[in-house]
């Protein structure tokens, strides 16, 4: 998608009040609608609301084309042991296209492991941003809430900008925000499962009260999942497998880009309330009368 076509879409949106709360139920929020509508995390503005992961791509070349098609401005990497035969670096791809690197702590099971990995990432990559992952077991890859909160507190105290991968638990999300996390990133469903958002209501609850960006961080399988996340009030979507393991990653990356944009626009526009019965959009007045005996009687 070219930059110009993207601009033309956003230009069509009237400068109406932003609905930062209650968009799904039709209530409107504070009137503040910057035309550019940037995503702001820890004081840093990003134009794209799609954060990509780099895991699962069959090759660096496929990954590079998918990242470009996605329009992402920030992308995760993992920290692993340096091997002498380490092939072409994912970092060189990110640097070549000016994409921010977001190191994660994938594979860490304790707060201690995650904190040490974050410190190493900061040293290696020169960023104090970290996607904090502390998982409980290999089968579900679900976060360990106790270790996660512990690690988040430590890293915030050490000056990190912490983006925690968390359960879709409104209470835990609030506690992560309270210790100073720059965003909260609930999972829609287990990592790599493609099961979408299993508990949309929890996402609404989290997004309604959060003062930091809420980012769908796992489970997206296809474009409608990403759009739903944005409609529920997420500020951004982070995904990897849905794109990198799609049959045509570059095409899915473009689809996700459009879905995130569409979902965001719909959220800001404020959807119509759901109704039990139909509500005609054509006027009832002025309808012709034909005297057709087969016409049913009006109730």
């Amino acid at each position, binding site marked *: 998608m070219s930059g110009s076509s993207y601009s033309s879409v956003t230009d069509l949106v009237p400068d109406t009040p932003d609905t930062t709360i209650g968009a799904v139920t039709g209530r409107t929020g504070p009137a503040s609608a910057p035309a550019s509508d940037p995503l702001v995390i820890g004081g840093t503005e990003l134009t794209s609301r799609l954060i990509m992961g780099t895991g*699962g791509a069959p090759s660096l070349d496929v990954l590079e084309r998918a990242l470009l098609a996605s329009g992402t401005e920030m992308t995760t*990497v993992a920290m692993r042991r340096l091997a002498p035969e*380490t092939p072409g*670096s994912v970092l060189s791809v990110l640097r070549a296209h000016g994409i921010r690197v977001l190191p*994660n702590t*994938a594979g860490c099971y304790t707060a201690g492991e995650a904190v040490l990995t974050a410190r*190493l*990432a900061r040293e*290696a*990559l020169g960023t104090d941003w970290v996607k904090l992952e502390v998982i409980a077991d290999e089968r579900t890859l679900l976060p360990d809430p106790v270790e996660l909160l512990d690690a988040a507190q430590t890293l915030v105290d050490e000056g990190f900008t912490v983006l925690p991968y968390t359960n879709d638990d409104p209470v835990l999300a609030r506690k992560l925000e309270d210790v100073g996390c720059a965003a909260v990133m609930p999972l829609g469903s287990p990592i790599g499962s493609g099961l979408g958002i299993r508990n949309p209501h929890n996402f609404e609850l989290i997004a309604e009260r959060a003062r930091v960006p809420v980012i769908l961080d796992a489970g997206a399988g296809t474009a409608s999942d990403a759009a739903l996340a944005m409609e529920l009030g997420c500020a951004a979507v982070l995904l990897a497998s849905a794109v990198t393991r799609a049959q045509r990653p570059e095409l899915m990356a473009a689809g996700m880009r459009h879905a995130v944009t569409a979902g965001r626009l719909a959220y800001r526009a404020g959807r119509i309330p759901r109704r039990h019965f139909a509500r005609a959009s054509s006027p009832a007045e002025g309808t012709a009368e034909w005297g057709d005996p087969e016409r049913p009687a009006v109730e």
Partner: protein
Amino acid sequence: MTSPRLDEPAATARITVNGATHEVSPDCTLDQLVTRLTSAPSGVAAAVNDTVVPRPQWTRTPLATGDRVEILTAVQGG
């Protein structure tokens, strides 16, 4: 060959690097060790015994028998 006397320096230091045992010279520094693994240590960080060693200190960080060294870099993931 006679056994080394206790007051003599050991011929090598036995350290663990990324989980594997290595014999290095007793005056080997962290900087020399990383250079053995990669010629371009951009995007690389190292920890000795679970403590991150900032790169400017690598040349001043000697390695001794029993040290556990982890050398990490960024890979595709997440």
